[in-house]
């Protein structure tokens, strides 16, 4: 039933089952053979002419959701006005040399799961203090306490059904406040082949924080770490943004010889997703600079960070 011009005919209208199977398998084998021959030919040609291969590989970029994302007006690309604004914004103090000092606390009546996660956070961020949350202490009050004790940032881990589910990150003294959904937590000791972290100040990698909102969030994360990493520790904390999910990982790089480098994961790993960003320190009635609402999700290719 194969047509003479090589076009594959459908086997569906052959009524004899054995015949149909036969022809189908033959067609399949022919197709695979043709493909194999084509690729071998291409390989031979490209061996003679390596530039052609380079050109082909360059051209062959698959379309992904990431590289076909909707164009945002707010992409920051060497903009002098934005640079001037950022030089005077709430993080300006950090970028002019103030050492960060972080307070970590939990929601009221926390459970061991939450405290364990806080311990992991303590190991990531240098110069951090954990304080157990008193039942009577409201957020506004804690923020005032932290301000008076010259903390520069505050993290509040929220839990629900005895699992940590959100982090509120407050930059002090003037804000902003960000609220992240927290998912996919893997503690360090559950990662196979994990290393032990040292007390060195880590390097920090921020990936793909491109829009104006992303810039603010990225600056918020970078303001959590001391400006000068201790490179001899070879520890790196990565905040990788992909489709608005922020993946947090910690690694140590290991030099195998003068050319090759390997990575050892130190953990923990978790994923954050921004839910809202508020101007100023946290206030339930404060004005939101950005807030996620379901009707903003107009397309699969629209991202905000």
């Amino acid at each position, binding site marked *: 039933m194969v047509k003479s011009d090589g076009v594959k005919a459908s086997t569906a209208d052959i009524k004899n089952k054995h015949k149909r199977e036969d022809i189908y398998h033959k067609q399949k084998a022919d197709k695979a053979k043709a493909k194999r021959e084509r690729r071998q030919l291409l390989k031979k040609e490209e061996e003679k002419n390596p530039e052609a291969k380079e050109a082909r590989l360059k051209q062959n970029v698959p379309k992904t959701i990431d590289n076909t994302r909707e164009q945002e007006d707010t992409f920051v690309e060497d903009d002098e006005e934005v640079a001037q*604004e950022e030089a005077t914004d709430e993080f300006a103090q950090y970028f002019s040399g103030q050492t960060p000092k972080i307070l970590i606390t939990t929601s009221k009546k926390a459970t061991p799961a939450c405290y364990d996660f806080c311990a992991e956070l303590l190991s990531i961020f240098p110069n951090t203090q954990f304080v157990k949350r008193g039942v009577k202490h409201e957020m506004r009050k804690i923020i005032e306490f932290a301000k008076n004790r010259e903390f520069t940032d505050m993290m509040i881990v929220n839990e629900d059904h005895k699992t940590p589910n959100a982090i509120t990150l407050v930059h002090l003294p003037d804000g902003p406040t960000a609220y992240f959904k927290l998912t996919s937590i893997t503690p360090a000791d559950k990662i196979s082949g994990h290393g032990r972290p040292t007390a060195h100040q880590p390097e920090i990698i921020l990936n793909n924080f491109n829009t104006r909102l992303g810039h603010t969030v990225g600056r918020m994360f970078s303001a959590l770490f001391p400006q000068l990493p201790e490179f001899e520790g070879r520890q790196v904390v990565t905040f990788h943004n992909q489709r608005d999910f922020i993946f947090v990982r910690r690694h140590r790089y290991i030099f195998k010889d003068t050319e090759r480098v390997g990575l050892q994961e130190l953990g923990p790993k978790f994923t954050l997703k921004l839910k809202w960003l508020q*101007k100023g320190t946290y206030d339930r009635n404060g*004005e939101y600079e950005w807030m996620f609402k379901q009707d903003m999700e107009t397309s699969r290719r629209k991202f905000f960070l």
Partner: protein
Amino acid sequence: MRYFTGDESGLVKSIVFPLPVVEKKVKKQKSQTDKDEEKPKEGPKTQINVFGTVNKEEAVEKMAWATINDEKMLVIARKNGKIQFMSPEDGSIIRELIDENVCVGAKKEGTFIGLSVEDDLLFTASSNGQICWTDLNTDTKTTTVITSLGKDLTCARLHPQLGHILAVGGKERELTLYDMNVLSGKTDAITGIETSSTNNTTKYKKQKENEKGQIFQAKNVKNDYLDLRVPVWITDLQFVNAEATMIAVSTHYHQIRVYDIKAARRPVLDVEVGKTPIKRMSVGVTLDQVLYADTTNDFGAVELKHGKVVAQYKGQTGATTAFCSAIDNETKETVVVSVSLDRFLRVHETSSIHRKLLNKAYLKQRLTAVLVDESYEVEKPVDEEAKEEDDLWSSMSTTSSKRKNRS
């Protein structure tokens, strides 16, 4: 239409959107031949002019129009107490005054809560209750305080037509109307307005000193169903009729209230809108509607006759900080112009039920104030085809009619 925005970095920007391109029907023959060559033309871009330099101390708090010596200019109230008169064309500062009641002390207390210019009189009010009325014909460098109305005010506004009637409100401060002429000592008696209280016994009670010039003071709404007092926190107010007898008020506890000062001291309409504090309010498409915005990305309109939300303007991702309605001089349609903390200026149409977004512009800063220049006309792009056609017509010689007059 031209738009002016003020932002937290102290910049003032003027924005002109290009006119919408009218798609012409291309002749069929032409389209067949040129189809492959024709590329999508890049439309004219939005023009944005930036006035000023980045300085957080000079953040714009309020903006208003002023007409002085038949010249239209922008009045800009800044965070550090400066009031600047700016030319809308080139951004040059024509005059500068300082309000010494704003940004005082080490804590930099005090913000502008009201700003307007009418008949060469500059009205400013600060959150610590200082009401200023400055004659612009004098050469003064500072504003003239006429009275102090006490602390915790959040909003002060003069009636747009009856420029001497002042309404104020605030945290635990009920809506109160004053006559500016009496407050400033120009006249003794209140003129041009009638209230419900003029005919009752309060007239005969001994007037307290702080009630001087007071036209009307609202009374708190009745206790709630648990018989608890309802807290007062007025965030914004608007006059919604020409006689200054109807006033709409928005509250921190997300209510919208309408007071009719001829009818009663309690509101004639009291509705709850949304779940978060309503921060700003402005007169809507008609005087029967008000636009409101809360602290999240909710921005809509409320009909004052029945108190229902009649429109939602969508697209904001942050809190809307300033807005107004304006009439487009091209299409003669009313549009709603808004700026928000997400750094965008947006223009919505009001003629259809879809409230479509007509235009938006990314302005790079957290915006706080907006003004519309309705009289400004956008330059029309030169239509080349029409020009060619005109040239063709003009190049032809006119033939004189040789028909003889038979009579």
